[in-house]
């Protein structure tokens, strides 16, 4: 099969925009060396040649790009000058994503991305195929994945095309999503240009005496604007979100401007994470993400967004859906020992002390004068902050799962099936050893782990951590034995079924 012919002009323009600068520079250089009307002609020739070359290249790319489904692998042969033949076994494919931005939607073309666990980037991209072909590829990959596992569908009595809608984002939830996902990360981007422009504008236009009020008002407006903007961004990103449960995989669709559709095979789920920030907790909402081993390096830019299973929903609903994906038993946690709170108190006290010292330094060595010691009032917050941090930590060991919870501002509950454990690590810093505490890290192959957000039981008793480490290693062995039994049983059932049929 081939790419969509419309991908030629689209790619030419897409690449052209990048190349245009280069062509223009070459053109100007060429024109500059001749000058006058002749120069203009040279410039025009260089530009035309550039465009022709670019389109020609894309035509060649299109003609030399071929993909097909074979018995066991998805094959891609590509490359104009250096050829590349790639075979991806169906069983190794983690996710199949379809992306369409606004222009691509008008043209009816889409980008397909196949993710595998290996490597640091997307395994294969089809840029671009028609919308129908994209869906066909997505369907066919999942069908052939199932096909590889035998007549599993017939055994379970599941009709091939059956799908249940697990979740659909309502308008109300969309608004709530906007509210809870407001953050100030954009502030830094906006603040940099403003810090250059702001002062001079103020000096020129602001009447004397109003400046302070203006600065404060301006900053407030900036904060509000960036918060609202980030909220709107995630509303656009998750507009029309739908999560479907199909025989062997989860499928989701989302996006207002850029449409996005992805598949998550059920047997590739590494961990699931329930996130609820302060605002969401107040409103009784939470969100859920599913991590697979795909997206290794490709997705760090926009975090975990593309694996969101539920952008936001009422907490109970999220928990019950999480339950459906991974059958964990409950969400009551063991808290770390109370002495862990002392650590946080000490830590925050040091932070406050540092701030006071800085303020003192500013007053002492500059013209500015303000009551620097007032910052010491922050000490009043220390016990509260330490308690809240402690309150939101926890871990839970079940037969087949380990669950951890961390964070006050954005609380994350990570559910790790024992079967997915890669390594188990305990560590004790010198500060932890003073209080006989340790941190337990459960490493999986999930994408979150690569960002350093593993499941962690922080500041548990050192002996408990040691015991947990050994228990988890054993749970993994048990889980693998269990998995093999299950698989052998399935194989037997399947074999019987085949002989019956």
């Amino acid at each position: 099969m081939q790419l969509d012919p419309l991908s030629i002009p689209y790619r030419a323009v897409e690449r052209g925009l990048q190349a245009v600068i280069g062509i223009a520079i070459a053109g100007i250089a060429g024109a500059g060396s001749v000058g006058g009307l002749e120069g203009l002609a040279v410039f025009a020739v260089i530009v035309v040649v550039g465009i022709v070359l670019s389109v020609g290249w894309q035509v060649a790319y299109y003609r030399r790009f071929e993909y097909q489904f074979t018995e066991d692998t998805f094959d891609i042969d590509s490359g104009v000058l250096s050829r590349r033949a790639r075979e991806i076994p169906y069983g190794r494919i983690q996710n199949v994503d379809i992306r369409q931005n606004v222009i691509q939607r008008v043209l009816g073309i889409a980008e397909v991305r196949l993710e595998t666990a290996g490597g640091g980037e997307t395994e294969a991209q089809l840029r671009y195929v028609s919308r129908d072909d994209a869906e066909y590829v997505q369907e066919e990959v999942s069908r052939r994945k199932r096909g590889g596992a035998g007549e599993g569908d017939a055994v379970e009595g599941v009709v091939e095309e059956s799908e249940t809608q697990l979740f659909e984002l309502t308008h109300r939830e969309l608004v709530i999503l906007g509210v809870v996902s407001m953050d100030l990360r954009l502030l830094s981007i906006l603040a940099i240009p403003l810090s250059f422009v702001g002062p001079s504008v103020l000096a020129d236009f602001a009447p004397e005496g109003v400046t302070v009020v203006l600065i404060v008002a301006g900053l407030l407006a900036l904060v509000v604007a960036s918060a609202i903007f980030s909220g709107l961004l995630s509303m656009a990103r998750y507009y029309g979100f739908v999560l479907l449960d199909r025989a062997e995989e989860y499928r989701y669709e989302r996006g207002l401007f850029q449409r996005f559709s992805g598949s998550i095979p059920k047997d590739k789920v590494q961990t699931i994470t329930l996130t609820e920030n302060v605002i969401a907790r107040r409103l009784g909402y939470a969100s859920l993400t599913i991590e697979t081993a795909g997206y290794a390096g490709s997705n760090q830019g926009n975090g975990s967004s593309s694996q969101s299973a539920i952008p936001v929903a009422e907490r109970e609903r999220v928990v019950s859906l999480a339950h459906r994906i991974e059958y964990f038993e409950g969400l009551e946690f063991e808290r770390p020992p109370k002495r862990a709170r002392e650590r946080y108190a000490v830590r925050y006290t040091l932070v406050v002390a540092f701030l006071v010292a800085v303020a003192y330094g500013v007053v002492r060595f500059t013209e500015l004068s303000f009551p620097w010691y007032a910052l010491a009032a922050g000490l009043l917050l220390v016990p509260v902050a330490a308690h809240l941090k402690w309150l939101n930590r926890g871990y839970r060991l079940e037969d087949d799962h380990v669950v951890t919870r961390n964070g006050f501002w954005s609380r994350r509950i990570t559910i790790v099936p024992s079967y997915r454990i890669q390594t188990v690590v305990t560590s004790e810093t010198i500060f932890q050893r003073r209080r006989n505490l340790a941190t337990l890290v459960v490493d999986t192959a999930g994408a979150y782990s690569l960002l350093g957000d593993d499941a962690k039981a922080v500041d548990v008793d050192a002996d408990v951590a040691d015991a947990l480490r050994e228990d988890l290693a054993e749970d993994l062995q048990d889980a693998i034995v269990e998995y093999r039994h299950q698989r052998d049983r399935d194989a037997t059932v399947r074999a019987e079924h085949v002989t019956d049929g």
Partner: protein
Amino acid sequence: MQTHADEGGPDVADPTAYTTDVRTLDSRVRWLWIGRALIIGAFVGGIATAVAFGVDRSYLWAGPLVGGLVAALGVIHSILLYRTWSYEVRADSLFLDRGVITRVQTVVPYVRVQHIDTSRGPIERAVGLSTLVVYTAGSRGADVTVPGLTPPEADDLQTRLKLLAIESEGEDAV
């Protein structure tokens, strides 16, 4: 996927045959680390001296002092690190225990081992030591490194781990 239904058959070797007791590293690895600490100390000392030279020459003595301190700390750290390092090849997993300031204990189940490397850098070769690196699909793969092994030890450990990894018939967890 092909099934391995005949587990527990007579041909399954006893995995405990490959296990070891708690082992420590070869003592020569200390010299490697001490050497590295001295080099870092000399480097920092050089920079500090250069800074002192540029800022105020009356503080020139501070440069070597800083370098010396860094080197001394590094040497102490090296000796302590050697003392804390131990590894054990267990029936189901490789267990590592090390760390001076932060003590880290790692369990690497054999079923999760993707591949095992031994590497010998030029300085390691000069001292006659090897490093063993065990890779998993997890993010902390690079953490599973056993330095300071003699080449026969490293080969031995690599073979044991390889056999145990094969024995455990790892499933794809990814």
